[in-house]
């Protein structure tokens, strides 16, 4: 335990150190979770889900960079298809681990640099179009791109390069600016992914902190705090699928298909499916349900059933979002996803959260 440097010399400390104070106990804190079980769950979450997730994302981004470089050299239709395929694979790998919205990924703007979304005012689109129009050679340099606006250096920019207006020129001009800018963006995504892998792979770094809660731990003082954070990934992950990936284009009387994530490349439901795969992998592989008391064990089965239903429906929806919101059968599937994600949030938040000692549910318990 380290004491923060006392600022109070400079900020003037009016009061003397404290004497003993009265202490009484009026209510029992939540029953302590079994620390060994917690450590095993956190170890599986870190070693079998989070670390492999970032490693897969990094490897995928590496293949994407290579595919973009090949495309730039060949400007051929097969190379174009291969680059688009590698882009979709990178979306899948990112979307599986994207569900982790805590820790290093939300530091140093890494998350926004990988994925700037939603682009409510078309800021990113305008900036990418301006970059393509300017043809400034500096924008073909990975290190330089990394210093530019978050909106022009990640997956959204690359989607426009590969699937937006003028993408066909990628098969017409070898070493064209558009392609080399795209290769720099891919290289930048690979570089950010490499940074995340480095941080998570350090044996004595965040992975150790996540796996071994304790009084001297910089992340989690108790097993309860660690499990709450893990549950938070699950709850917030499903909330994001519902609020930011489905309702953002499908709510109210007027659907807005062009606000859907990755609509240009037809990867909207590819990404949503991968988000759900990531959540199911984390829930199942971590074994967080081991903490459920015997009489509540059925909660785990209910959560799995909901996840399975979502995973069965999401990939079958028409990849063309504009069509999907106009076709009754496809709309029905989207509405099913909305209803089941709502139900899943309640199961995780209230039932699993309640069983883990969060009386009023997970979301209620984060103060503010």
């Amino acid at each position, binding site marked *: 335990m*380290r004491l923060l440097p006392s600022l*109070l010399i400079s900020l003037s400390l009016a009061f003397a150190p404290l004497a003993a104070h009265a202490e009484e106990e009026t*209510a029992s804190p939540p029953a302590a979770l079994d620390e060994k079980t917690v450590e095993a769950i956190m170890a599986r979450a870190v070693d079998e889900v989070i670390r492999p997730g970032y490693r897969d994302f990094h490897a995928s981004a590496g293949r994407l960079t290579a595919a973009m470089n090949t495309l730039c050299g060949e400007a051929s239709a097969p190379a174009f298809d291969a680059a688009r395929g590698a882009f979709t694979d990178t979306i899948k790998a990112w979307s599986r681990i994207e569900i982790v919205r805590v820790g290093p990924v939300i530091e140093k703007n890494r998350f926004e640099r990988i994925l700037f979304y939603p682009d409510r005012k078309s800021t990113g689109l305008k900036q990418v179009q301006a970059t393509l129009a300017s043809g400034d050679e500096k924008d073909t340099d990975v290190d330089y791109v990394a210093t530019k606006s978050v909106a022009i250096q990640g997956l959204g920019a690359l989607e426009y390069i590969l699937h937006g207006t003028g993408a066909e020129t990628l098969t017409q001009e070898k070493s064209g600016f558009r392609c080399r800018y795209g290769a720099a963006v891919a290289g930048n995504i690979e570089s950010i992914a490499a940074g995340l892998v480095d941080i998570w792979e350090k044996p004595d770094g965040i992975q150790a902190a996540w796996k071994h809660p304790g009084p*001297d731990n910089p992340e989690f003082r108790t097993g309860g705090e660690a499990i709450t954070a893990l549950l938070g990934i699950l709850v917030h992950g499903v909330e994001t699928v519902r609020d930011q990936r489905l309702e953002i284009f499908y709510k*109210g009387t007027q659907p807005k298909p062009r606000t859907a994530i990755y609509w240009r490349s037809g990867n909207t439901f590819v990404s949503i499916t991968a988000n759900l795969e990531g959540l199911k992998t984390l829930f199942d592989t971590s074994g967080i349900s081991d903490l459920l008391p015997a009489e509540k064990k059925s909660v785990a089965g209910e959560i799995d059933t909901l996840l399975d239903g979502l995973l069965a429906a999401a990939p079958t929806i028409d990849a063309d979002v504009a069509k999907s919101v106009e076709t009754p059968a496809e709309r029905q599937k989207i509405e099913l996803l909305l209803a089941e994600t709502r139900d899943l949030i309640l199961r995780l938040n*209230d039932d699993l959260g309640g069983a883990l000692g969060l*009386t009023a549910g997970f979301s209620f318990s984060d103060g503010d």
Partner: protein
Amino acid sequence: MRGALIDRRDFVRAAGLAFLAGLSPRAAFALGRSDAVFASAYRGADGGYGIATLTERGEIVDRFDLPARAHGMAFSPATGRTVAFARRPGTFAMVLDLSGRSEPVILSAPEGRHYFGHGCFSPDGRLLYASENDFEANGGMIGIYDATAGFARAGEYSAFGIGTHDLTISDDGRMLIAANGGIETHPDFGRTKLNLDHMEPSLALIDASSGALIERHGLPPSLRQLSTRHVDVAAGGRVWFACQYEGPRNDLPPLVGHFAKGEDLAFVPLPEDVTIGLGNYVGAIAVNRQDGLVGITSPVGGGMAVTIDAGSGKVTQSRVLADAAGVAPAANGFAVSSYRGDFQDRHSPVAWDQHIVRLAARG
């Protein structure tokens, strides 16, 4: 481009009107009962949200449904009105007249803004100030609403910081006090705290008539991850503030401090076991002027309620209270609630939210 947030706002407005239409005259009358001295937001056993009024002993007097979860509240002794703000990143606020003289009013944050969960009335009750997020510009704002004109939006001031959370006002109404928690958030990320590696916490004193900055107190680099989130005002105008630490969990940061206009910030050194018991986190703070005490609560680290002597800065009492939520000055000491339904020594089948307001003038 109209995003999901705008749709939610429309939904909340429509839902709110339906709630108002369903309010019976009896309910409005009951809200005016004189033994109601506290109000707090809650989540009911059925999962629905509302606010309740309570007696000094913590018994529920009446309830009022809300379309979604509320967070902070404010009371105007001049008009008898109480306001409950949506929890961030919510876009509604509900104004109730506990005297039953006027109809409830639902406010909606304007486009490009959401409520941060707190606000205050001017002493004469004519203006309502709300802490708001200009999320595209990542700037804390103070929305101003005219209580004499149906709470129409009358303007806004900068809060001179980011992540503005609690907001209160000096007794003479001349100075707004904003607790800028310093954490970037955006409704596209829900409640996720973004970029905790470059927080900018501050406490700002703002001229209530002009919006001009009077003083702004940032924190030194060693405490840049100490989010200054809640404030209350003691007799004489001294501002007490409470913090939530986003830095390493094994640090022992200061969590409570005070200052007056023209002074530097001064922190109260809490005993190590209290800082640990609070989980490096204070969720609510209240001053009891009559008793010269400051109360703080935390739901983190097992939950704790702590009382501090405002004169000496010494902790006079600390008690473990699981899921401790709100704190407000009571007839003696403080009323404290919990997510588990405790309020004083009474238990109700609700989850009390993070804040309690006392339905009375400052002592």
